[in-house]
């Protein structure tokens, strides 16, 4: 199978073609833009990139020819009455298969947009903008960022979002209302109230594409799994994980009990644990974890969008030092080196 890795970096988007054990790095696209996330829409092969620039702000670029030509979203911004301005675009999630042309976009400050015309125009999600708990949300080190958008594989009206540091929210009505879904997840930085309704610092949230109601999250204060659509969460960061802290998270679409994390020492020292880049895997829903060392010695950092996964159980991690590693069937391979600092990795099949 021909793989396509989409590697978003601080300085442009890199496409890497994979065929067997051969990797071919292409020239950077959207040079000069910081690509927080890029994704290939499996429904029509369109390429989307959350492109940001410190002068020109955040936007979304779309290409229907794998990056040869690009169109930019029109008038992407927040309504005046919100009193907020869009600071950056962060994560793009193609909508449910039953809703062609629909896409979701997460951004800063804690905002969500929906497009129903394949990313040309975007409407800000009103229920989230005016959420009753918004005043209790606090920005994390990367800002008040809506970085995770997880869809229910069966029910198009149900989705979850993750915001740092507001927590996980669930909608059962296609985004018309949002309920906090943080029961059991700790806000270890609030000693006076470590289990609040909102305010948790979720770092990455994913829903298993084959098993409805199973969610995973790498949180500031632990690794968690939910088997009831976010009603409750079970803490998993014992039994082999060197740290509860980390950002990256990956799943295996073919096995709902498999997950991957890349632990870091802690919030005050955000480098991979034990002086090595260890990709930790569980095959028993988080009961136990074991590492595969991608490279050692290494004091690497893999950001929250920095690990992608393919349909066959392969995972791909990109570091802040510009290296990309593949972990497939227990074997690690270096895919690319000396790229700009990597912000995101997504794995797709070559359309």
């Amino acid at each position: 199978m021909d793989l396509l890795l989409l590697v978003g970096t601080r300085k442009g988007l890199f496409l890497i073609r994979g065929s067997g054990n051969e990797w071919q790095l292409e020239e950077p696209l959207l040079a000069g833009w910081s690509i927080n996330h890029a994704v290939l829409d499996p429904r029509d092969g369109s390429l989307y990139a959350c492109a940001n620039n410190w002068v020109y702000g955040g936007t979304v670029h779309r290409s229907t020819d794998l990056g040869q030509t690009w169109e930019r979203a029109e008038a992407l911004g927040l309504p005046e009455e919100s009193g907020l301005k869009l600071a950056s675009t962060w994560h793009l999630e193609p909508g449910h298969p039953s809703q062609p042309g629909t896409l979701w976009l997460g951004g800063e400050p804690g905002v969500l947009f929906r497009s129903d015309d394949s990313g040309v125009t975007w409407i800000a999600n009103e229920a989230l903008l005016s959420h009753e708990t918004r005043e209790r949300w606090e920005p994390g080190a990367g800002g008040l960022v809506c970085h995770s958008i997880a869809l229910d594989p069966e029910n198009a009206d149900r989705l979850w979002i993750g915001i740092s540091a507001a927590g996980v929210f669930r909608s059962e009505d296609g985004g018309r209302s949002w309920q906090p879904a943080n029961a059991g997840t700790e806000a270890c930085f609030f000693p006076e109230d470590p289990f609040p309704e909102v305010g948790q610092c979720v770092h990455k949230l994913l829903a298993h594409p084959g098993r409805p109601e199973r969610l995973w999250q790498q949180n500031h204060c632990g690794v968690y799994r939910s088997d009831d659509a976010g009603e409750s969460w079970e803490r998993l960061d014992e039994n082999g994980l060197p740290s509860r802290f980390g950002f990256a998270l990956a799943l295996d679409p073919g096995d709902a009990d498999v997950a991957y994390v890349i632990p870091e020492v802690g919030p005050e020292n955000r480098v991979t644990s034990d002086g090595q880049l260890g990709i930790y895997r569980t095959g028993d829903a988080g009961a136990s974890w074991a590492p595969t060392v991608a490279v050692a010695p290494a004091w690497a950092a893999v950001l929250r969008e920095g690990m992608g996964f393919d349909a066959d159980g392969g995972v791909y991690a990109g570091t802040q030092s510009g290296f990309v590693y593949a972990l497939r069937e227990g074997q690690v391979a270096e895919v690319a080196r000396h790229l700009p600092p990597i912000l995101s990795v997504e794995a797709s099949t070559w359309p």
Partner: protein
Amino acid sequence: MLLPGLLASEVGGQREFELDATTVGAALRALPVAGLVLDETGAVRPLVHVYVDGERERDLDAPLAPSATIRIVAAIAGGSYDRSKMVPMRLGGWANLTIVVGHLVALGWAWTAFRWVDIEVEMRELADQSAALPYLLTLLVAAFFLIFGLYGLSAAGDLRRLPLLRPVLGFIAVVYLLRATLLGGIQDVLAGDVKQVMFAAIALLIGLCYASGFRTLSKQKRMDTARPEPSS
């Protein structure tokens, strides 16, 4: 209209545009990259600098000459702060300039004015040395208020940036706040002198204006030097 490289690459590499527009804002809005130059409220993004025929232009309503050349430049650093936060600073600056005018006008009725502000005795002593001294001292005081006012307006973005802007702003704030408290204000309140308490209150307000300007400038400085890292 001339575009920098990154914006030009968004429109197929075209760097120059001929536009029909009567104001700077209309010209920017007519660009195919308007959404990158302006934010969703229609304001120019803070790090985008607009030059018309070589002069920095901050007013989107400024009229354009028929052959004007607009150049968009990405700030290398600094940019401009949110000017709405500089409203107190602007008020403080104009308050000082008003005081300058007050001093100059008062020179016409100098002794009445000295009496009114309760410094007649001190001024008589000066006048005994030389009749011109009270007038010269008044002019010197007015000159200080003028400098204070110009620094205030400079911080508010209405004048070119003056040297040592932030430390001078902090100094002025401290001078006013001290006048309003330890150096007179508290004593005036204890003495129940209504007129002097009013002066102290004015000093307090102006001091707070300058302190607010100092704070906004300091925040901007922090933002320039420490951009948040994405994600981690």
